[in-house]
C-alpha cells in the first residue's frame, strides 16, 4: 500500500496547470518567453535609497504590476546610518529565500505534496575587509551563503529533500547568485 496516497489533491495555492500550459505554449514561441525585469532606485539621503518596481516586459508586450511596489534600503547604526530599511545584501538574501520558497511550493504542488509550513533561514558571511578596501584579496560579496529549510509537509524526508533540490535547480535567483553574469553600468 502506498502510504502517501491522498484523498484530496494537494493545494499549495500554486496554479500548476496554468504554469504547465504556459510551458507548453512557450516551447513553441521562444520570443514570447523573453522577459525584461526592471527596478528603479532613487537615492534619498546618506546610504538610504528607495527602489520601485512597476513595469516589466514579457510575452511580447509591456505589463504592469497590480500596484507599484517599493523597497527601502539603508544600513544599520553600526554603519553610522539611520537604518531606514534592510541592507541591499539582506534584500539579496531575501530574494534568494523567496525564490526558493516559490520553487518549493510549485514543485510540491506539481508532485502532489501538501505543504503545511515552509520556513527558510538564510545566512550570508562576509568580511568587511572587502567593501572597506582593507584587503584587496577579500571579495566584497558573500564568501558563502547557507539556506536552512524547515518544511512540514505530507511527504517523506527524501521526497522533501528532492523538492528542495529541484527548487534550486529551477531557481532564477539561485542561478544569479551561484553563476557569473555580465553587468553593464552606464551613465546618462
Amino acid at each position: 500500500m502506498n502510504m502517501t496516497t491522498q484523498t484530496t489533491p494537494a493545494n499549495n495555492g500554486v496554479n500548476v496547470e496554468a504554469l504547465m500550459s504556459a510551458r507548453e505554449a512557450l516551447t513553441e514561441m521562444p520570443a514570447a518567453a523573453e522577459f525584461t525585469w526592471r527596478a528603479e532606485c532613487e537615492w534619498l539621503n546618506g546610504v538610504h535609497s528607495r527602489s520601485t518596481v512597476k513595469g516589466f516586459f514579457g510575452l511580447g508586450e509591456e505589463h504592469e504590476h497590480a500596484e507599484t511596489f517599493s523597497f527601502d534600503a539603508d544600513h544599520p547604526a553600526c554603519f553610522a546610518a539611520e537604518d531606514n530599511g534592510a541592507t541591499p545584501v539582506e534584500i539579496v538574501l531575501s530574494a534568494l529565500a523567496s525564490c526558493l520558497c516559490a520553487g518549493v511550493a510549485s514543485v510540491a504542488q506539481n508532485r502532489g505534496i501538501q505543504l503545511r509550513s515552509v520556513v527558510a533561514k538564510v545566512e550570508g558571511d562576509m568580511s568587511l575587509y572587502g567593501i572597506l578596501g582593507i584587503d584587496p584579496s577579500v571579495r566584497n560579496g558573500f564568501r558563502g551563503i547557507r539556506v536552512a529549510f524547515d518544511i512540514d509537509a505530507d511527504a517523506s524526508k527524501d521526497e522533501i529533500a528532492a523538492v528542495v533540490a529541484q527548487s534550486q535547480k529551477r531557481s532564477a535567483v539561485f542561478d544569479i547568485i551561484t553563476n557569473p553574469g555580465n553587468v553593464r553600468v552606464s551613465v546618462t
Partner: protein
Amino acid sequence: MYSTTTLIIGAGQCGLAMSFELSKRSIDHLVLDAGRAGENWHSRRWDSLRLLTPNWMNTLAGQVHGPDDPDGFATARQFAAEIDKWVTRHAPPLFTNTSVKSLSRLGEGYIAETNRGPIRCRSVVVATGACARPKIPVFASTLPHRIEQVSPITYRSPLELRSGGVLVVGASASGLQIAQELAWSGRKVTLAVGSHGRLPRTYRGADILQWMHLARVFDEPFTKVDDLERVRRTPSLPLIGSPERDDLNMDILQARGVELVGRMMDIRDGKAQFSGGLCNAVTSADLKMNRLLERIDTWVSDRGFDELVEPPKRFAPTTVSTDPRLTIDLSEFDTVIWATGFNPDHRFVQMPVFDRKGRFQHHGGVVEDGLYVMGLPFLRTSRSVHIDGAPRDAKALARQISGQLSQPLAA
C-alpha cells in the same frame, strides 16, 4: 546512379540491426558508412575504454548473447571485433568509406549524394549515432592556445597528454572515467561537475544494470514519459565497466586526489569560473540514486525475493567541500577535456525536419513516412542508446518501414 528501396546511413549497431530486420522482411536495402562498420568503436574511443554495460546487454541483432563472459565488460576494441564478426557472418549489403554529403527529397523518395555518386531510395534510416560531435561550450574558444583541448573522441590515454594539470569538464560516464584514469597517472585533475547521476556498480549482490533491467527501468516507452525532452537530455549512466566491478563516483575520485568544482560557466580574465551550485548537484544525484534503489527494493520485496539476495542498503551521501573553488587561474592547466556531452551530426539532412535546436523532430524514430532515425537518447525507450536497444528499435521501425512500402505510391 545506384537505387535501392531503403538506404541505411551508418553501419554501427543500429544500422546493422536495421539491415538485419529488413533482410528478414526481404526489403532491398543498402548500408553506408563513412568508414568501416562500427567505425566509432574501432577508432573514436579512448584506449582503455570498456563498455559500461555488461556483455549480456551488448548483443547485436540476431545474437542471443554478447561477447564471451555475459557478466564481463568488453573493451571498445573487442566490441568492434564483434561487429566485424557479425558483418562477416551476415554479409549485409554494405558500402564502406562512403560518406553522405546531402540527403534530400526526390519525387516519392529521397536522394543521397555520396562520394560514390547519387543513391536514390524510397525510404531512409539515419543511423549515424548520437555521439558524432562533442558538444563544447562557446567559451572554449577563449582558452589560450597554450592549453590543449581534447574531447572523449580525441582523447587516447594519459601518455598522450602533456604532463601538467588537467581540467575535466563534465561528470557523466566519460568525464568520470577519464578523470580517474588521469588521476591514476599522477596528474593533478580538477573535475567540473554540473548536473549528474550516481549509481553503484553492484547492489544487493548483482550488477545495478541487472536490477534496472529486471525492474523494467529501461522499458518505459517514449509514449508514456511525462517529459520526453528532459529524459532525452539524461546523460550516460555514471558507471565504469571493469573486471573488478569497481564503483566510480565523486567520493572515489576525491580520494584519488581529484578536486571537484561546480559546473564550468565561463572564462574571464584568464580564469575559469565555476558555479556555486555543486552541493545541490551532488545532493540531487544522491537522492535520485536512492529513489532507484527504493524502486529495486520494492521490486525485490513484491516478489518475495528478500531472503534470496543481499539485504537492502543505502550508500553514504557524497561529501563535497562546502567551499569549492569558484575561479581557477588557467595557468594551473595544460589540458582541458570537454566531457560535456555529444550531439549527433545530421547536417547532411537537407530537409525541414529539425526543431529550433537542430534536432530531428520525430515520433519514436519516425521523422516522416519514409524517413527514420535511430540511436538517439530515448528514441523509443531509455534502452535506445544501449547496444541491445538497437535490435529492439530496429524491429519496431522496420515494421513501420514495411508498412510504408506496402502503401501504393500517390498517383
